[in-house]
């Protein structure tokens, strides 16, 4: 007993010390002095555009998610540095044998920024909210991920979305247990729940600020104030202000359940021009930015800036549209695959650390198969295959995008030049069609049959194979111009396999099947780079951009 009291006294004294330490530190901050002391704890990361919304359930873009990840947390997070799901607001979960019932055990002692307790009822409130979005709130520009992952809403004007969702119900048997019941298996659910779109939001705040009241007419939806001024989550940072076009400011959550860390303020200045971002870093106005151009990486590193790479969670590929009769011949597709010198292309045009691809999924994704058919660089074999197909003097259209830089394709023009040179080498005449990325290029590739070869790619949303190959080859499309029911079926049955293990095996088969069928040539998994000033420590680079700044520190 005495021991206990003693420990209590010592503990209280220690706590008091820590608190007074914090207090004096805070007290030392003079907001009017232009902030040398404030600057020590402010982390400034350049964003390339405004968030689309501060309510992550109404967004699907990276800039929104970047901000949302600081303020919100979902049931599931990711293992740091990977795309694999990890406990976050749910400490653990169990999936029933039939794959229909998910029991989440929730973390204790968590409150939302408005002091609403986080509990099983809050979980159910959020699931019910997503499932009961109505009207305009169901459109893809708002609730894209719920529509995609769940496959429908409780009710919808759109027949394809009307009651077609997999989510059935949510129950809260006790404060810290939430049970989600599905109407059919969805093994990707746990991975998907790591998306900011499925963050837990405060039921009180959602109701108070009318989060679902997307007003205006169908032509002109206006987001409610919840999504512009009152985002309320459980994360380490709370919303301070958003000046559209200028910056978003967050401040440390004093009641955060986890490690708060050194950063007391996070600022996202909005700088859309890539060169302007680089100069802002060089001038010391920002601490870091991402999507650093490959050309800037070396120069910045030489000047002493830190370059941090995210693990590649993407794929760049050369698409071959089989609506073009010659490309419908597997031998021609094989010839093209053998003609492209991927190693040389990667070395010459993509950032250092980029891996050459053999699958249409990056290696860290479940279902990646390292035993798929590969097509090594072999120009002689390519010429033979073309001769066998009887098209030794093949002329082919090659469409590629201009004025765009995607994480999987920082310099499309350069990639095009390498591939075109390789093809010319084996006797294929390339007719180039450069087009501006949006909307011309995407329209041409995805909307019409009028293209032969093209460059495109994808960055994954979460660790799920369907999110790559399903997006590409889930059904007939103008991009690829083929009908392969066997492949489509294999993909849809893999998607609904009841367990992740069964699913993984099925996806490995699918990946082998794809590389046998060869609808395109996976080229590379380029590494996206971030740049920071030298004093920034422990930036938690994540392949799926699950980067929360409470672990960042700044050394002065």
């Amino acid at each position: 007993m005495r021991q206990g009291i003693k420990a209590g006294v010592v503990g209280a004294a220690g706590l008091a010390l820590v608190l007074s330490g914090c207090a004096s530190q805070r007290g030392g901050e003079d907001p009017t002095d232009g902030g040398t002391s404030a600057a020590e704890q402010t982390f400034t990361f350049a964003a390339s555009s405004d968030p689309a919304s501060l309510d992550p359930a109404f967004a699907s873009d990276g800039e929104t998610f970047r901000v949302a990840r600081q303020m919100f947390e979902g049931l599931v997070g990711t293992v740091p540095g990977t795309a694999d799901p990890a406990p976050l607001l749910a400490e653990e979960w169990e999936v029933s044998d039939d794959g229909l019932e998910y029991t989440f055990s929730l973390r204790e002692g968590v409150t939302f920024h408005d002091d609403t307790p986080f509990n099983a009822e809050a979980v159910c409130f959020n699931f019910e909210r997503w499932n009961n979005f109505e009207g305009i709130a169901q459109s893809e520009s708002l609730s894209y991920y719920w529509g995609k992952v769940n496959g429908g809403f409780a009710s919808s004007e759109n027949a394809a979305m009307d009651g077609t969702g997999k989510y059935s119900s949510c129950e809260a048997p006790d404060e810290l247990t939430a049970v989600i019941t599905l109407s059919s298996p969805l093994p990707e659910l746990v991975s998907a729940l790591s998306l900011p779109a499925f963050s837990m939001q405060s039921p009180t705040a959602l109701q108070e600020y009318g989060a679902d009241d997307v007003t205006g007419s169908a032509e002109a939806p206006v987001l409610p104030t919840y999504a512009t001024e009152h985002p309320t989550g459980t994360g380490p940072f709370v919303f301070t202000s958003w000046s559209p076009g200028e910056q978003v400011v967050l401040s440390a959550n004093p009641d955060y359940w986890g490690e708060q860390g050194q950063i007391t303020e996070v600022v996202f200045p909005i700088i859309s021009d890539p060169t302007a971002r680089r100069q802002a870093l060089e001038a010391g106005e920002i601490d870091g930015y991402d999507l650093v151009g490959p050309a800037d990486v070396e120069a910045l590193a030489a000047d002493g800036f830190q370059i941090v790479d995210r693990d590649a969670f993407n794929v760049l590929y050369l698409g071959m549209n089989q609506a073009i009769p010659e490309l419908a011949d597997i031998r021609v597709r094989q010839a093209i695959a053998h003609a492209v010198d991927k190693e040389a292309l990667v070395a010459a045009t993509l950032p250092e650390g980029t891996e050459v691809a053999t699958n249409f999924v990056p290696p860290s994704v479940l279902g990646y198969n390292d035993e798929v058919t590969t097509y090594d660089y072999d120009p002689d074999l390519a010429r033979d295959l073309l001769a066998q197909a009887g098209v030794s003097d093949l002329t082919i259209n090659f469409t590629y995008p201009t004025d765009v830089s995607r994480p999987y394709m920082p310099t499309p023009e350069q990639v095009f030049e390498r591939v075109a040179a390789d093809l010319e080498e084996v006797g294929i005449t390339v007719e180039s069609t450069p087009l501006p990325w949006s909307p011309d290029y995407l329209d041409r590739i995805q909307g019409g049959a009028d293209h032969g070869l093209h460059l495109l790619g994808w960055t994954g949303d979460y660790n799920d194979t369907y999110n790559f190959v399903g997006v590409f080859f889930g059904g007939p499309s103008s991009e690829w111009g083929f009908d392969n029911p066997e492949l489509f079926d294999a993909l849809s049955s893999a998607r609904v396999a009841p367990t992740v293990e069964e699913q993984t095996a099925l996806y490995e088969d699918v990946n082998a099947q794809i590389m046998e069928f060869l609808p395109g040539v996976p080229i590379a998994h380029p590494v996206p780079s971030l740049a920071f000033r030298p004093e920034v420590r422990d930036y938690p680079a994540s392949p799926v951009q699950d980067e929360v700044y409470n672990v960042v520190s700044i050394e002065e």
Partner: protein
Amino acid sequence: MTRLIVRRLALLVPTLFGLSILLFLWVRALPGGPAVALLGERATPESIAELNRVYGFDRPLPEQYLTYVSRMISGDFGVSIRTRRPVIEEFASRFPATLELTIFALVFAVVIGLALGYVAARHHGKVVDHASVVVSLLGVTVPVFFLAFMLKYVFAVQLGWFYTTGRQSQGLDATHYTGLYVLDGVITGEWDAAWDAFMHLVLPAIALGTIPLAIITRMTRASVIEVQGADYVRTARAKGLRSTRLRNRVVLRNAMLPVVTTIGLQVGLLLSGAVLTETVFAFPGIGSFLYESITASDYPVLQGFILVIAVIYALVNLAVDVSYGVIDPRMRAR
């Protein structure tokens, strides 16, 4: 004078009507649509169709135009597709930034341009004159974005005197009334804030003001040279008018007329130049917003912003015409 103003204002109505038709047709003639820009590279045809339905882009053109015009007349410019905020709100929140930048750029261009042009004309044919010609040539030939990057590289990145982006520094909790940050700082007595905002404005204002500076320099120089050689000036001089008085009253007043026209025309140039300058300096005004809206095919913003800018431009031109009357009484009679 009043009649002139009323007549000119009345002319604005048909002009705007014509412009609204042109704008409406123009944005709809752009290839593709906003859907892809909004939905990303994996948008399905169904979702694109859905988005077009939601925003009304699938209706017949005349119907779309009528909706658009009737909304506009009631002051409703629609909602930005990209930011989902009302266009008019977006404009209002960004306009002060552009206004402030434009004022600084114009002051820079007018003060330096007039001085340089005048001095060059007074020393016609000498070194100063040649230098002014070189400056004005460089000013119109160096692309704005190049100049902007060079200014930033030298004075912000290397020397650290100014800022590369934004309107004010972090951690500066300034109070804002007008949205013109320098003025706000002066009004509230927050001198730190005013100075900070000014330091943010210097480089973008120079980048934006350089072309107008070059044009004003040339115009002032040519105009002053011409007036200096005019008969009435010679007569005045011969009659013994003292030289300072002569310069101020006779030469300057007469030389100003074409210069004022030039300055008026520069306002339009400044508004279009702001698109590039603001983008390069991440300056949160209407210019950078227009740029982002163009890349995203954000129709409502393009239509609304360009129309409002056109009105401003027309009003500025009216102001220029009125100022003729002030400078040259003969104009009032016409």
